[in-house]
Each structure stands twice: as structure tokens, then as C-alpha cells.
């Protein structure tokens, strides 16, 4: 009996051998996937146009310094605005006499108040992002709009803001 050499793989082609059905399909000439007529001829022009549009959008963006400043205020601004709004509301309630039509804060549940503030913060953030990042090719009604908006943020820059 032939002795197996050290390191000799057992049945080396076993994993590579294609099942007959796949070998047969490999010889098929016609693919089921098609492309529109002239697609590859116009592709490079479309890519270059898209590149150009992106460059123009970047040129319209704030310079890096003001960008950094924007990031620094990005997280603080909504929180400051919400805190200021809440403080003003409390002041009004304390200073002015209550009448039957007046809102009584104690009647509003904590959950409702939290939900209102969270919505306000999210709306504020998105409004600021929209102002900062133009997404001309998408409508805010599209499902992936917010994902696309968030994708445009440079994570490196956000990280550097946190770790500085």
C-alpha cells in the first residue's frame, strides 16, 4: 500500500470539482441578466458628471474651520435650545396667574413631555443636517433620505471632535 506523504492533501481536487449541473451551466452563452442598449458606452460620462456634481456640492460647503465649529455646536445647539425653551415655559407658568384655558404642566405626563422634547431635538438635528449637506438628488419623503443624509457625515471628523 502506498504510504501517504507528509502534508499531502487528501483528495486535493475534491473541493474544486464542480457538480455536473454547474459545469453544464458554465457553457451557457446567453445570460439571464441584461443591460440597457448602450449602457456601457454612456457609463463613464455619467460617472464623470456625478463626480463633477459632487465636487460642486463640496465647494459650496463651509470651509474646514467653520465646519469644525459647526460640529462643535451641532450637538450643543439643540440641547441648549430645548433647555432654554423648557426654562422659559416654567418661568411663564410661575409668573402669570393660571386661568381655565392655561396649560397645566402637571397635567402633562412625563412621557408626553419627553416625547415632545425628543421629537424637537431630532427635527432640529435633521434641519441642521439638511442645511449643511445638500442632497439634491433625493426627496425628504423618500424612505432612505435620512440614512443618506447621515451617510454624508464624515465619521472621522465626528470622532476627532469627540476625542480632541
Amino acid at each position: 500500500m502506498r504510504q501517504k506523504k507528509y502534508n499531502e492533501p487528501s483528495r486535493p481536487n475534491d473541493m474544486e470539482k464542480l457538480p455536473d449541473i454547474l459545469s453544464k451551466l458554465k457553457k451557457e452563452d446567453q445570460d439571464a441578466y441584461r443591460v440597457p442598449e448602450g449602457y456601457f458606452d454612456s457609463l463613464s460620462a455619467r460617472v464623470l458628471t456625478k463626480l463633477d456634481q459632487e465636487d460642486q456640492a463640496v465647494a459650496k460647503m463651509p470651509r474646514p474651520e467653520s465646519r469644525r465649529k459647526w460640529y462643535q455646536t451641532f450637538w450643543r445647539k439643540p440641547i441648549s435650545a430645548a433647555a432654554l425653551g423648557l426654562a422659559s415655559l416654567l418661568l411663564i407658568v410661575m409668573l402669570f396667574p393660571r386661568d381655565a384655558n392655561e396649560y397645566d404642566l402637571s397635567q402633562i405626563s412625563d412621557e408626553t413631555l419627553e416625547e415632545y422634547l425628543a421629537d424637537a431635538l431630532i427635527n432640529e438635528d435633521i434641519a441642521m443636517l439638511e442645511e449643511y449637506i445638500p442632497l439634491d438628488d433625493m426627496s425628504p419623503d423618500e424612505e432612505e433620505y435620512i440614512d443618506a443624509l447621515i451617510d454624508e457625515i464624515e465619521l472621522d471628523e465626528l470622532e476627532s471632535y469627540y476625542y480632541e
Partner: protein
Amino acid sequence: MDPKSDDEILHLLRGEGTMDLGFRYLMEKFQERLYWHIRRMIGTHDDTDDILQDSLIKVYRNIDRFEGKSGLYTWLYRIATNESLSFLRKQKRSKQDALDDHSDRLAAMNADSYFDESQALAKLHKAVAELPDKQKAVFNLKYFDEMSYKDIAEVLGGSIGSLKASYHHATKKIQRALEAE
């Protein structure tokens, strides 16, 4: 345009004032291969078109990061594969469960006017669409692009042994799916 070697394309891409010309040569040379690779990962033409354009733009913006340690084409495939995998991940996140995701993908393929169901390969593409994403990438690169495991490892990462095992599992699953038809 005259075909150029990878080195000539890279030289143009890195030269002063010749970057756009180099990029045109690069697109001319690789766009079809990359298109078909992405199409086999994604299934529908419109999504493939978006992902291919984004991948090519990423190549243009990051050409300075190409160190030449791997081949140009494996680097391009890596970018295209990552873009495709990230698209599939996003799609999956928006679905309730994996079953929804698979049936939606098959439905999208059937509805695509650039997919011909009457062709023999239609069944194969549908069977590939059912594979887990990583296995799908390994299978496509090996079966359709006929890449070596060494090159596939450069594109996807991982050891050659694990890639071989992935390919083996993928072919078995596809064989079962095709024979069950």
C-alpha cells in the same frame, strides 16, 4: 481608446493633470467586469448601476490610498464588493426578517425588465441570490470571474482554507436548489 496596462493607468492617475484621462482608461478597462460582479451580488440593474457609479467614484477619490501591494483589479473588486455588501446590509436592516429579505430580492429580480427568466442561467442566479452574502461573493468570484483563491482572499479577506470551505458549501447549496427545480 487604446487599451492600457494597469501600470500605465496608475501612472496617468497619479500624474499631474492626467488623472481624469487615467480614470477614463480605468473605467474603460474595468467597468464591465465590475458591473457583472456587482450585478451578480445585487440582482437588479438599477441598483447595480448606482452601486457601480458609487464604487467608481470611491476609486477616483481614494486612488492615493492604493499602495500597489495587491493587484489593481483586486483592489477595484474589493471596493465594488464592499459597496455591494454594504447595500445588502442596509436592505436587510429595513426588512422584518431574513425571509422577507430573500423573497423581496427574488421579486425584484423577477420584476426587473433586464432579467430574462426564460434563460437557463436564471435559475442559477436565483439560487445564488439565496446564499448568505459572503458565500455569494466567494461563489461569484470563483465560479463566474474564475479568480484564484489568493486573489479572492485579497478581495474579501480571510484564509484560503475558509474561502475554499465557503465555496464548497455554496456549490452544494446551489446544486441542491437547482436539482430541486
